[in-house]
């Protein structure tokens, strides 16, 4: 069998047989403790500066950010943005409890559908699980309330992100994922799909010259909810959503 052939060839090269149990245990211990390496100093800064760094980095990568005081401001921010971009007042929205909890009645002319994205959708409203200040990167773990297609098919993606969900470095987001999420299939915490998104889609394949909007969104607009007072709200809402989607799956401790 090729598995044995490959492993055998590797071991011959390393001039040893299969690892002794104690050495294998040591390597498994390294995985379990997943030690951090050097974390660049650029994100080791006071909280307000971290958020400012996140915004600066998003804008550097051609994304846009609008700060809003609370969730109630979302409908107005969405409709104003669409009008400014000369886009029709129609969005397809992630079935995320936080987006669904918003009172949209003040903007009756905004057509909304809650589902995954399909061909022909022009604008999506997605929910970001975290933001990383180091590079202005959004984290989108896939689950029933956050379909990955919303990040890909529409030409314009609007993203809701709570300021409290911004961390400095990627490593902090990994630790939050490990602590807060539970995958129903593996019992681990890694979702099926985890997209880290930094700015809108682009290509430099034609004469090494950057053009935005290759296959994914041409515009990435972040609505940043300034919620630092209540930093843990979001993850609780999400845990409830996950528990509803998988009846019988108990919420993990710490959710």
């Amino acid at each position, binding site marked *: 069998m090729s598995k044995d052939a490959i*492993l055998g060839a590797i071991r011959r090269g390393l001039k040893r047989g299969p690892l002794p149990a104690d050495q294998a245990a040591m390597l498994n211990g390294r995985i379990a403790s997943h030690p951090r390496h050097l974390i660049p100093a650029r994100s080791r800064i006071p909280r307000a500066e971290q958020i400012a760094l996140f915004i600066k980095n998003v804008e550097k990568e051609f994304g846009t950010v609008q700060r809003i005081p609370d969730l109630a401001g979302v409908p107005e921010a969405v409709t104003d943005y669409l009008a400014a971009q000369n886009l029709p007042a129609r969005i397809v929205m992630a079935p995320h409890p936080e987006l669904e909890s918003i009172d949209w009645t003040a903007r009756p002319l905004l057509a909304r559908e809650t589902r995954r994205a399909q061909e022909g959708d022009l604008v999506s409203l997605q929910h970001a699980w975290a933001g990383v200040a180091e590079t202005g990167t959004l984290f989108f773990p896939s689950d029933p309330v956050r379909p990955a297609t919303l990040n890909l098919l529409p030409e314009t993606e609007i993203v809701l992100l709570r300021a409290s969900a911004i961390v400095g470095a990627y490593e902090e987001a990994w630790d939050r994922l490990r602590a807060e999420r539970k995958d129903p299939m593996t019992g681990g915490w890694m979702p099926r799909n985890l997209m880290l998104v930094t700015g809108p889609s682009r290509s430099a394949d034609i004469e090494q010259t950057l053009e935005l909007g290759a296959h994914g969104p041409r515009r990435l607009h972040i609505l940043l909810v300034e919620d630092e007072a209540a930093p843990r709200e979001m993850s609780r809402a999400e845990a409830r959503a996950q528990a509803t989607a998988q009846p019988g799956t108990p919420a993990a401790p710490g959710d």
Partner: protein
Amino acid sequence: MVHLTSPAFKENAARALADPGLQKALARTKPQFHGKRAKAVAGLPEFEQLRNIGRDIKNHTLANLDHYLEVYAANVEKAGGVVHWCSTADEARAVVLEICRQAGAKTVTKGKSMISEELGINDHLEAHGITPVETDLGEYILQLRKEPPSHIIGPAFHLNREDWEQSFRESHTDLDPKRVFTERRDILTEARTKLRSRFLAADVGITGANFLIAETGSSVIVTNEGNGDLTQTLPKVHIALASIEKVVPTLEDATSLLRLLARSATGQDFSVYTTFSTGIRRQGDLDGPEQYHVVLIDNGRSNMIGTDFQEMLRCIRCAACMNHCPVYGATGGHAYGWVYPGPMGSVLTPTLVGVDKAGHLPNASTFCGRCESVCPVKIPLPKLMRHWREREFERHLTPGTIRTNLRLWAWFAKRPAAYRAVTRMGIGALGLLGRGKGAFKWLPFAEGWTRGRDLPAPEPGGTFMARYAKARRQGR
């Protein structure tokens, strides 16, 4: 599969140097790649430390590769995925075809993947009635033009805008032939529209993998266009092709390498999409594939472990070495004659296809060392190329004239007095020839060299050794 023309490197290079379109494209290397990388590196003061960390992570993984591969495979299976271990390219092609057949696939979308080029997946699928569609913009036009990639991250690097326009007019015959491409964006938009329907219709999506993560059983792809994500999200079957050295132990390890990758490659701090795929669609998910296959490919890598060339397995395919290589900058990627061009290709190609066929490549180097100085995982590329030269010499593959001249040089090198006498005469003769001008317009036997440039004439006063001895005598 990319047709191997490495044995004809000299002819390829001569043709490349005389190709004005290619030279126009290559002139973009410096402003586009050098400047952007330098800026990104300057923006991260810890970059040098991270290079050491990246090298150490890869070395640790390679020293325990068997263990980490087994942990990785077990975690893929936990997430409902299947791992196919393949020793050879033949085996991997057969596995991919069988998965596509089982899925009843008519068309297959593909993300950009160098291992896919190495395996020749496209030709194999086509020969069996399945249509592969390259979706990376650069790979897409190369598929239309039936050309191999010339660069590992910018496959259509050698093309100019007029080539794009011409190929699109010739291939997209359903569109108005009189349409005008006023800007590059028009070309991009046409490709986006054409490929969107392909994404939606595909039965299977094939991607490569930049990393595999043992801790979680994830495959990671890094792209800017989003084509890789559409490829792995929309069809009901996702196949990830990955060679065995792609595995790293943890997310923290992958993170440190990701901090190096985009900066070294395109000069971005981070690529637009860095996506971790772990198994099949979960219960309640609204999208994602129902099958997830990893084709884990050796194809010659395990033979490199324990040899001088093990260090090459650290490579994360950023392309910084070719972007900074004076030889690549003059000839472009096609001259190298196989999948991997530039310095990394000059080391890797002989290991994978044989030094008898690819021996010219490690010789096509000025040994300026720039490749090693920009490598994010500190692969000593010049040293490894030198190893190939030694092996080529040992195996008597080096041409006779070179061997004779080397033997002649060695005779003098082992006899310092004779060496000094000959160099003294040479310097004297050159001094006479270049007298008064300080440089040569003309040199006997070196017309090929002086046609394009000058050589400074030796200053009066003899060789370094002669002047050194004189200075010692005078007590200086």
